[in-house]
């Protein structure tokens, strides 16, 4: 669309800008302020420069949390994206079944995050949970409070349960926008099921998948409430992800300076990865278009 150049459009933006500035810029400035100072009390504080940043970047506990965070995010993406596409392909497209399936599939997305944790806590307990009890009856010594492997597997299963619907719904909406004529043309050409997917459906899904993968990466990188309720970060530190390390440091230990520095590093990592991913995808699409042209 040809947009008109008009700086008066700023007036339309202004109310939004003021509000977001209040809830984003002021707090962020507070964080920056803390990150370069050592605060003892309201009147005693020292300028420390980059000391907190250096300390945080060299903290082995945080390196471990960061590694766990990446391992977790990549694992859930690797499971949820293909599974979501698969579910979108088999979701019914019309009739009452379509509405019913749509509502059921969306349901996990609308449950408060700590309730998701509670649901899985109840579901996986060895004594009163269906899954925990069944696994034990089958002879597997399932115990998420003692075995890191069980805890990890459960958290990943929980995340798949919770967030695969997002990918599935995004893809479903992408698939719905393909005109019937495309499929008819494919049938006349006797295209195989795989080539229909590869050359008709997948290209239509690229846009929504970019949104889906970005959202999933961001959200999985900020995960807090679900593992906190389910495992509390344990056993040991094996399921302590970045958000939980940060809240423990900021609220639990009241280490304002270090936790502020940690916050900024954390935020920058998410921005950087999202930006790299986004640019890479956009360049790939551009190359692809140039080849076709």
């Amino acid at each position: 669309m040809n947009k008109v150049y008009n700086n008066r459009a700023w007036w339309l933006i202004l109310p939004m800008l003021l509000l977001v500035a209040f809830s984003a810029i002021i707090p962020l400035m507070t964080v920056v302020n803390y990150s370069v100072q050592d605060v003892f009390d309201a009147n005693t504080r020292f300028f420390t420069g980059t000391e907190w940043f250096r300390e945080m970047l060299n903290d082995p506990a945080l390196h471990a949390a960061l590694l766990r965070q990446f391992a977790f995010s990549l694992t859930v993406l690797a499971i949820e994206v293909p599974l979501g596409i698969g579910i979108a392909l088999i979701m019914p497209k019309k009739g009452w079944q379509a509405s019913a399936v749509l509502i059921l599939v969306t349901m996990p997305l609308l449950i408060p995050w700590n309730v998701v944790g509670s649901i899985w806590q109840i579901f996986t307990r060895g004594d009163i949970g269906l899954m925990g009890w069944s696994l034990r009856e089958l002879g597997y010594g399932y115990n998420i409070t003692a075995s890191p492997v069980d805890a990890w597997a459960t958290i990943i299963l929980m995340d798949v349960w919770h967030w695969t619907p997002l990918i599935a719904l995004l893809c479903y909406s992408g698939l719905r926008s393909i005109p019937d004529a495309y499929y008819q043309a494919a049938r006349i050409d006797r295209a195989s099921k795989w080539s229909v997917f590869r050359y008709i459906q997948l290209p239509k899904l690229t846009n929504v998948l970019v949104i889906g993968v970005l959202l999933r990466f961001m959200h999985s990188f900020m995960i807090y409430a679900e593992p906190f309720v389910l495992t509390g970060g344990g056993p040991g530190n094996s399921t302590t992800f970045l958000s939980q390390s940060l809240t423990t440091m900021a609220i639990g230990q009241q280490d304002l300076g270090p936790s502020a520095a940690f916050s900024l590093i954390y935020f920058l990592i998410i921005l950087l990865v999202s930006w790299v991913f986004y640019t890479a995808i956009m360049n790939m699409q551009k190359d692809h278009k140039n080849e076709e042209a």
Partner: protein
Amino acid sequence: MTKAMPTTPEAVRKRAAAADAKRRRQARPVSRQWRRRTLMTAYILFVLLPVYWLLNMSFQSNTEILGGLTLWPEAFTLEHYAKIFTDPNWYMGYVNSITYVMMNMVISLAVALPAAYAFSRYQFIGDKHLFFWLLTNLMAPPAVFLLPYFQLYYTVGLFDTHIAVALAHCLFNIPLAVWILEGFMSGVPKEIDETAFIDGYSFPKFFVKIFIPMISSGIGVTLFFLFMFSWVELLLASTLTSTGAQPIASVMTQTKGASGIDWGTLAAAGTLTILPGIVVVYFVRNHIAKGFALGRT
């Protein structure tokens, strides 16, 4: 192609349609449809099973829950629900949650509508940078903002009020609303604006009378997303409140009593947090497909 088949577009289309109908009868064997249905059913079961377990437990007494595993409530009881609906500590949690979610939806939509219109129709100094900066707010971990929010709202005297949580949730909901609405608005041809202005509509009148009705499904979907992200968030909501505006999600953490966790009440409270979501999805079910692509398919 054999012989002289007519190649007028009409005839080709007819043939294609006939081949199509034939294939639909033959080429999709019953077995494949069944495989599809089985897989779908399996996934739905996977989604429902943990929720069923929660529901099951909410109808059992605590002695039955701890007494051994039962696949359905043998002594059906509503005591946990009765407790939630009679104890103001519990039911006010729901009222508080719904209050701040509604406030957030109204505020976010009110400021996002004009902003999204500006982004979809005009170029201005810094528009791209501003849009990118907005999106970066979606990437900000709530944990980062925890402490500064607490101090900020405490200083301005808004701590433990509904509006504090509503404003805090604007951090991610306003950018989201602008992003979705911009997609829907870009789908409306610009000629409509121009014609309306030629017809003598003023901007506010055009916006309310003509433009908003045209993107009503987009607005519905946006409200759905605003509801969703404000309803499910807990970390900021529970940090910014203590007793006056406590969300239900943080009331639930109080079920850990001296005598262990009150599983039945926890399950009943959890079940009740799922219901508003289902009601909301039901209303937007016909637009959700387009909405999830953020109006960009």
